[in-house]
């Protein structure tokens, strides 16, 4: 209970504690163009972000593991329209330490991250890996959180919704200066690659956008921007409140009035179709009773897929059944409606327990345009690992094992996948934690390198060197004692002369000789 409380306090402390304002920010935030509605509603509640979302809480001198067979990288998945976005498994450990001979990972310190190279888009049948199995990403709820009177000291960061703002740099010019923000997700996805970085300035009005910035629905208005701090009158950030993943597709195609589709114990009936109005009435029937009736449509092509109202007009949901009127390639044909229906759907809700493993809380990661960028699963309770013990990741998808601790040093530990494939020994005589970056996705392979890449490289090299020195010393001291088998750097092998290459050079010599012979004969004759 205490740990739960600490988890909540730690999470809440990250969140700027100002209450949601009475101001109607839906009239203040800028849409993409005049007349276009905001795609996401303004949030009416605060939900604490996961612990360690701030930049200062990144892993410290972490070990790096590029991947394991059971934690695949760059795995292409499919959607219903031929797109094949790569997916990445990520594992992170933050703020771990050694205490009384045990390794301690605080609540929120262990994070699994389903990462993606491109945004996950609803209504397109995109497959999303869910701890080794594939589910279909169907729909989502995103909101815009607005905080007032937010101060970001230079170099530090704050969380607004699911968005992290870091006051990154000040650059002077004569007596003027500009100030740059880095905008990231709670998982660490840096939006610089997609949207650039907002730059504010009170003294260079003709170079930048002044004291206000707009990065889709991440927007803000500063009252003070100095090299010491930025103070925002208000600051908005998107939060992915829920994503819906379904395990089973039960129907995809044209359905006429009167047709019924079975989805587990329910059936979905097409009650009527009004093609002229662009609508279809569906009924969800349980035990002979209609428990849900809904009119789907009409399709508002100009606002799909991200606009919440336009999208929700096409979607119905009841229990673990979800479906929608698919606008592509066309919503209606020959008097029938183009429906997609899924069963065994589950919601991953921001900050709630992960149903598959209650030890973990889940946080979907949102892109401000309205796409999903994977999800995080973080441990709710502190993890303590004695030498020789291990902890399973969510649903046992991976394992963190500590083998040997001496004083405040972790001499041997590793990460392993579900099949038992282990990383090399990540410990060593200079290692004082089990902080980890595993993966090659948008966060582990890209964004986080900006924050901890230098440390990570230095740690990797130094640890290799220290382990090699330790191994050499132990061999000298006790040559009869077998040392633990470790992966050691091997000298790069010289390019071998393959049999094929040897044969090819032989043929070359033969050819030169033969041609020379022919020339010789001709010269002799002439």
């Amino acid at each position, binding site marked *: 209970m205490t740990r739960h409380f600490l988890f909540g306090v730690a999470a809440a402390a990250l969140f700027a504690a100002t209450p949601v304002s009475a101001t109607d920010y839906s009239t203040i935030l800028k849409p993409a163009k005049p007349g276009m509605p905001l795609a996401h509603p303004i949030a009416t509640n605060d939900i604490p972000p996961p612990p360690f979302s701030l930049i200062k809480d990144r892993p410290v001198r972490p070990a790096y593991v590029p991947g394991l067979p059971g934690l695949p990288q760059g795995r292409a998945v499919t959607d219903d329209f031929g797109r094949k976005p790569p997916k990445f498994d990520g594992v992170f450990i933050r703020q771990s330490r050694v205490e009384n001979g045990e390794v301690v990972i605080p609540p929120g310190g262990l994070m699994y991250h389903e990462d993606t190279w491109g945004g996950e888009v609803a209504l397109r049948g995109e497959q999303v890996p869910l701890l080794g199995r594939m589910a279909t990403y169907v729909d989502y709820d995103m909101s815009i959180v607005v905080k007032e009177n937010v101060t970001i000291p230079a170099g530090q960061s704050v969380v607004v919704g699911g968005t992290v703002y870091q006051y990154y740099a000040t650059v002077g010019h004569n007596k003027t200066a500009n100030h740059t923000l880095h905008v990231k997700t709670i998982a660490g996805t840096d939006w610089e690659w997609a949207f650039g970085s907002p730059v504010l300035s009170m003294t260079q009005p003709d170079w930048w956008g002044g004291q206000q910035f707009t990065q889709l629905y991440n927007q803000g208005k500063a009252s003070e921007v100095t090299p010491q701090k930025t103070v925002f009158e208000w600051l908005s950030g998107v939060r992915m409140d829920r994503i819906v993943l379904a395990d089973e597709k039960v129907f995809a195609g044209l359905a006429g009035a009167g047709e019924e589709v079975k989805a587990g114990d329910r059936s979905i009936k097409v009650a009527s179709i009004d093609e002229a109005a662009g609508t279809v009435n569906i009924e969800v029937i349980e035990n002979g009773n209609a428990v849900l009736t809904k009119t789907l449509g009409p399709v508002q092509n100009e606002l799909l897929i991200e606009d919440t109202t336009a999208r929700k007009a096409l979607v119905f949901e009841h229990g673990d059944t979800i479906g929608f009127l698919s606008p592509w390639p066309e919503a209606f044909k020959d008097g029938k409606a183009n429906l997609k229906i899924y069963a065994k759907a589950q919601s991953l809700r921001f900050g709630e327990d992960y149903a598959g493993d209650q030890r973990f809380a889940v946080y979907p990661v949102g892109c401000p345009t309205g796409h999903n960028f994977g999800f995080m699963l973080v441990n709710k309770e502190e993890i303590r690992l004695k030498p020789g013990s291990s902890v399973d990741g969510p649903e046992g998808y991976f394992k963190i094992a500590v083998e040997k601790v001496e004083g405040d040093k972790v001499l041997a530990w590793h990460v392993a996948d579900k099949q038992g494939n282990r990383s090399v020994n990540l410990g060593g005589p200079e290692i004082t934690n089990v902080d980890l970056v595993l993966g090659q996705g948008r966060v582990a392979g890209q964004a986080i390198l900006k924050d901890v890449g230098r440390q990570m490289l230095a740690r990797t090299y130094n640890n290799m060197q220290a382990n090699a020195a330790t191994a050499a010393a132990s061999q000298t001291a006790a040559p009869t004692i077998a040392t633990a088998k470790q992966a050691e750097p091997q000298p790069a092998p010289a390019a071998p002369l393959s049999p094929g290459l040897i*044969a090819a050079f032989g043929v*070359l010599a033969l050819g030169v000789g033969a*041609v020379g012979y*022919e020339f010789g004969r001709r010269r002799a004759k002439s």
Partner: protein
Amino acid sequence: MIPVRTMTILFLVAALGYVALSYLTFRVPETLEEAELCGFIEGDFTAAGQLAYPPVEAWWVSFTRMQEYWTTVSVGLAVAFIGFALIAGRRAGGGAATGAAMGGGVLALSALCVSCLAPVLSVVGLGIAGTLLAGVPKWLIALNTLLLTGWGTMFLARRLASCALPTRTSPATAN
């Protein structure tokens, strides 16, 4: 006498045919692993995980990065030589010319075995040849093909010249 014009035409037809075949059999890779086999790198993919090139450009990028122009040269040389050997064989009645023609065919196949068409060849059991030649650079295969077909052409031309054979005449002109 070397039929230069015929061999040139055969070379061009075979080379262009190979280029066309390469284009027709090219499939835009869908995964990073597939892409690497075709000469692409991670930077060739967009943020959305799709190859940044349209199909024709993607093929050309793969063609040049995989140095398929060497394979084109090898196939052209081998086919031109096969043509010459068959012409010579028709006039000489087989023997060395037939062997030379077969040699040319082997050269063409060896070039194909390390080309981007190699995966197709594995269907007909020729993948093992590609494995043996996997470490051989394509320029070396092209150079060997040039030397061997050059030698074969000179050899057959010498044979034809040293034992002048009557040209085949049709029954109509025999009268």
